[in-house]
């Protein structure tokens, strides 16, 4: 919202030497966010009134003229101009060198320089209104019309801002910062805050007393939606422009002057925050009624929109039908028309939620509706009526109010609040003198009565529509007016009742740090919604998957039941730039089942914390990818201090390769999968070249250790010996079988057996593979001799040959 400081000064006499930046700062700290402050005159720097002394033809151009212009300088200047209405004696707007204008009102502002136009030197430029941003106040009737300021009577050389009385400061206030303050949506409301802030008197509105005895017929049929309606028939008016000063104020705060009748209503709204409307009284048949629309009732708005209304809409109607959408916009055919001579002035109050619903329903938000929907108080009608009548009387000395009616069936109750000083002092952290409290609250319209241990407060009408209703609100009023910066910081007291121990929270962090810092994986974040093609590629069906009612895109309606679809999308994205990468994501997944009520009064679907990983690399090294993934997941419990996993083959994941898959189990229960993404799924995802081993784990199933549990074991006193064996076996023989065979016979000297390598291919007979294992041989009592070590190895070899048909490699 734009606020004119000159307008504010109508209601509160700010000191002349008021520091503008201080005012903006104080308002920001205590009331609303001031986003900017502009000196209006700065826009018209180096733009002055010039008097045309003579208009001469241009020697080289038929459409141009050379004007001899007095710009208040010692000599008369030559200015080349193409204006259609140039005349000697006319006062025009001259942009002197250094001023900025917009050529024909378009494009970026440009700086005026001395220039030659078709061979004739020109001092600056004679401007059209659009070129100095004043087209709303000086509308041109034809394209090349020059702005004429003769009527303002300013001497040649007077700065334009001074000539037009534009010396004002415009504050830009962030609308979001006052959505809760319906009283601030007009200049009077801001003035009231400043009066309280600086302890200055506020100019009151005089009450309007109608002289006429005739009652205008107003019927409110829905008093909940329309608590108050003032209707007044005013005769002796007519459509004409409003005075320049009024137009100028309306323009400088961002609206457009239209004609005197409409301008008065807008002026009143900008001043008081109370919207008003005028109907052509000749068009209103018999009476005004405020009622709900009939379903299907038609109404054409002032902006030409044709509406088909519903029963939730409130309308202003006459005996024949709807003439306006209450609180939103007037109708096209019954509002002010060119021939309007007399009007029905409406100053009314409408309930906020209804106005909001209707304006949203027809996508028709207006200055009026945005004020009503903040909950304007019905008492404000008095201020608006008073000002409107005053302005009409000034603009139309002949005007007469011939009928009047103030229907106020639903009277506003002022809120009343009791505040104990003891409570207030505790919350504020200090005692503020009672007279300061009473004065500040009084300035803002609160009535304060001291009751000994506290005070009884009656809230002003303009704060009683929901804004101020409890004692915390009163505390806020006192604190912000006293100044938040005037409270000394108090320290936070600590009650020491034991250290914080959050095993689950810590485990999640350990897992993420393990993956990132020990396993060189990168954490990613993806959205909770999945793209359809990835859902199809990775999940067997969409059954049991929750969807959004209003998805971000038509193909992103499902929200994730698994992290893998979005992880695969991330693979596609990065495949372009990297040949090898490992990524992980920790996030919640959602399932349309197992609804539970963990908290009072709601039942929520299953939501689990999952971990998803992708190990991505060349399709030539699938075994390496697989072992990387298995190593990371298999070692995770040990390094993150939780119960260990086992790998089993229970159920192949839908998306997995036929052979390369494992289930991850904890305590015999499946908690996740680790598998090579099948070629079919990979292609459906659009993964072109690389292969990926994917992992998904239910992190809610993880069981953290209460503390570190691994025990120290003694470092061997005598050397351990590594002895590598290579042999051929059937290619279907699994490592676990080899290991079981090696370790099957108890031998105190054989401590362990490790996998080194396996090889299939050249030099190896079909159906066979060469396996290299490492025996770890040693004794706790002595250093072994070569012969002793050989003996252990030989017995192992014999056992391998006998049990699994191993063949000592002869290569």
């Amino acid at each position, binding site marked *: 919202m734009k606020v004119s400081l000159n307008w504010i000064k109508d209601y509160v006499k700010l000191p002349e030497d008021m520091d503008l930046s201080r005012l903006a700062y104080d308002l920001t700290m205590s009331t609303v966010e001031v986003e900017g402050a502009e000196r209006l005159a700065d826009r018209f720097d180096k733009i002055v009134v010039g008097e045309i002394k003579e208009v001469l033809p241009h020697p080289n151009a038929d459409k141009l003229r050379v004007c001899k212009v007095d710009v208040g300088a010692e000599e008369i200047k030559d200015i080349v101009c193409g204006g259609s209405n140039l005349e000697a004696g006319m006062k025009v707007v001259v942009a002197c060198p250094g001023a900025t204008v917009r050529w024909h009102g378009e494009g970026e502002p440009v700086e005026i320089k001395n220039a030659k136009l078709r061979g004739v030197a020109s001092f600056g430029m004679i401007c059209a209104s659009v070129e100095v941003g004043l087209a709303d106040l000086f509308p041109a009737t034809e394209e090349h019309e020059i702005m004429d300021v003769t009527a303002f009577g300013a001497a040649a050389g007077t700065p334009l801002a001074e000539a037009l009385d534009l010396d004002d400061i415009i504050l830009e206030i962030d609308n979001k910062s006052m959505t809760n303050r319906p009283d601030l949506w007009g200049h009077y409301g801001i003035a009231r805050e400043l009066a309280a802030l600086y302890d200055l008197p506020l100019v009151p509105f005089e009450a309007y007393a109608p002289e006429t005895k005739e009652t205008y017929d107003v019927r409110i049929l829905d008093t909940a939606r329309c608590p108050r309606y003032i209707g007044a028939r005013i005769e002796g008016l007519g459509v004409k422009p409003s005075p320049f000063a009024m137009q100028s104020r309306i323009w400088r705060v961002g609206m457009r002057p239209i004609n005197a009748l409409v301008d008065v209503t807008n002026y009143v709204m900008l001043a008081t925050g109370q919207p008003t409307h005028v109907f052509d009284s000749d068009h209103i048949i018999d009476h005004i009624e405020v009622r709900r629309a009939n379903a299907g009732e038609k109404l054409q708005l002032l902006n030409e929109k044709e509406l088909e209304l519903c029963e939730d809409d409130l309308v202003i109607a006459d005996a024949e039908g709807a003439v306006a959408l209450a609180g939103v916009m007037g109708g096209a055919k019954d509002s002010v028309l060119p021939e309007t001579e007399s009007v029905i002035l409406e100053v009314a109050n409408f309930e906020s939620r209804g106005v909001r619903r209707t304006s949203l329903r027809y996508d028709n938000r207006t200055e009026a509706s945005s004020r009503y929907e903040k909950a304007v108080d019905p008492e404000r009608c008095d201020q608006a009526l008073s000002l409107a009548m005053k302005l009409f009387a000034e603009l139309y000395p002949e005007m007469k109010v011939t009928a009047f009616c103030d229907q106020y069936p639903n009277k506003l109750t002022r809120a009343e609040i009791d505040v104990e000083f003891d409570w207030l002092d505790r919350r504020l952290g200090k005692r503020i003198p009672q007279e300061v409290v009473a004065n500040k609250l009084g300035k803002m319209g609160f009535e304060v009565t001291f009751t000994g241990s506290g005070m009884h407060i009656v809230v002003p009408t303009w704060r009683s529509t929901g804004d101020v209703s409890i004692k915390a609100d009163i505390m806020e009023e006192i604190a912000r007016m006293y100044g938040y910066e005037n409270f000394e910081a108090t*320290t*936070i007291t600590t009650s020491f009742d034991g250290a914080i121990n959050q095993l689950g929270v810590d485990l999640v962090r350990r897992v993420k740090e393990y993956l990132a810092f020990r396993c060189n994986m990168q954490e990613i974040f993806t959205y909770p919604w999945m793209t359809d093609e990835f859902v199809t590629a990775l999940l067997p069906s969409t059954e049991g998957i929750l969807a959004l009612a209003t998805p971000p895109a038509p193909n992103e309606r499902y929200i994730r039941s698994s992290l893998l679809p979005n992880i695969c999308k991330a693979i596609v994205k990065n495949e372009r730039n990297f040949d090898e990468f490992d990524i992980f994501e920790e996030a919640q997944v959602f399932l349309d089942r197992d609804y539970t009520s963990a908290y009072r009064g709601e039942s929520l679907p299953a939501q689990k914390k999952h971990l998803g990983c992708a190990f991505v690399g060349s399709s030539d090294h699938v075994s390496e990818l697989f072992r990387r993934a298995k190593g990371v997941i298999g070692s995770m419990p040990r390094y993150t201090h939780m119960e260990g996993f086992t790998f089993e083959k229970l159920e192949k994941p839908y998306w997995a390769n036929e052979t390369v898959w494992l289930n991850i189990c904890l305590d015999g229960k499946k908690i996740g999968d680790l598998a090579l993404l099948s070629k079919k799924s990979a292609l459906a995802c659009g993964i072109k070249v690389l292969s990926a081993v994917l992992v998904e784990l239910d992190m809610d199933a993880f069981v953290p250790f209460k503390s570190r549990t691994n025990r120290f074991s003694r470092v061997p006193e005598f050397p351990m010996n590594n002895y590598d064996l290579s042999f051929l076996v059937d290619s279907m023989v699994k490592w676990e079988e080899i290991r079981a065979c090696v370790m099957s016979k108890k031998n105190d000297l054989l401590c362990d057996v490790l996998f080194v390598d396996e090889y299939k291919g050249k030099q190896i007979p079909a159906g066979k593979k060469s396996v290299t294992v490492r025996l770890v041989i040693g004794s706790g009592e002595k250093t072994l001799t070569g012969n002793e070590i050989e003996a252990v190895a030989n017995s192992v070899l014999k056992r391998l040959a006998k049990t699994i048909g191993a063949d000592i490699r002869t290569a």
Partner: protein
Amino acid sequence: MKDKLEALLRDGAAKIEGAQTEAELQEIKSTLLGKQGSITELLKEIPKLDVSLRPEMGKAVNRVKSLLTEQIEGKREDLKLKASEISPDFDCTIPGFEPKIGGLHPITQMCYDLNDAFRSMGFEVFSGPEITSEYYAFDNLNFPPNHPARESMDTYWLEGHDTGDAADKLCLRPHLTGDSVRYMQTHKPPYRFVYPGRVYRNETTDARHERAFFQYEALIVDKDFTYTAGKVMIKSILSKVFGQDVPVRMRAGFFPFVEPGFEIDMGCLVCGGKGCSVCKHVGWIEIMPGGTPHPNVLRAAGLDPDEYTGFYVNIGLDRLVMMRYGVDDVRLFHSTDLRFLKQFH
């Protein structure tokens, strides 16, 4: 014999000096000092000498023997050092190996930094469900029934759960504040906890707006707590995160779930408060809303608002991370682009 000895010492010393390898040296050693070596031979001749000459000669031969032994060992040491000598053309300017390492998302990193700071002040870390009922998203938080945020333009409602009363309507949480009520309902006061997480808004995205973004909320609830203590808390946290003292100011603000409510600004670190393009020339950057929990929120949590009060802040994590690194597009956080994410290792 004396001459012989002198010659032996001279020749031996020269040979030792000339040895190129350890093997060669070993060879020289055995020809001089070995069982059939020259010195050993000389020693054998000593008994043949006149008795009066024997002690002197014995000493002389032993002196030469130990001199040569010393020389050999010295040379052996030299040869060892020489063998492991590195060629002078070694290039020290070649780059080091980059350690192969992964990383946490920059938002996770910021979140953990904040967790550490808050936990050092005795706060617990809490997280709630991302799908919530309207009851916890709005009703509990004193959002009036006509609040615009309830309308579908702002909140992602779930299909099939988008009608009915507040307990039946489900949505992706539009903010974290509902979780504070969950925590308070299930714990005993006084409270001191943080609840970071991702929230969702149905809006048009651009460089400054995202549909999914991260918030970090902290709440203290206690008896006799003044709002200025909240200012101390914010100042401590920001100073810890940015590693320097950060000026903080609180000004009037409005949010349904707090009363009074504040907009909290931090002094611009780019210009030091002088005014620059980052802070729109005001020297302050709006960093978070905060305030005292509204009595209705405390009531929803089962507390008596006359007895308890507190302080709440909501830190925009994305914004904080953007300030930390100068990131200019919030959408990068969900881009999954490793070229972006790898910059924060």
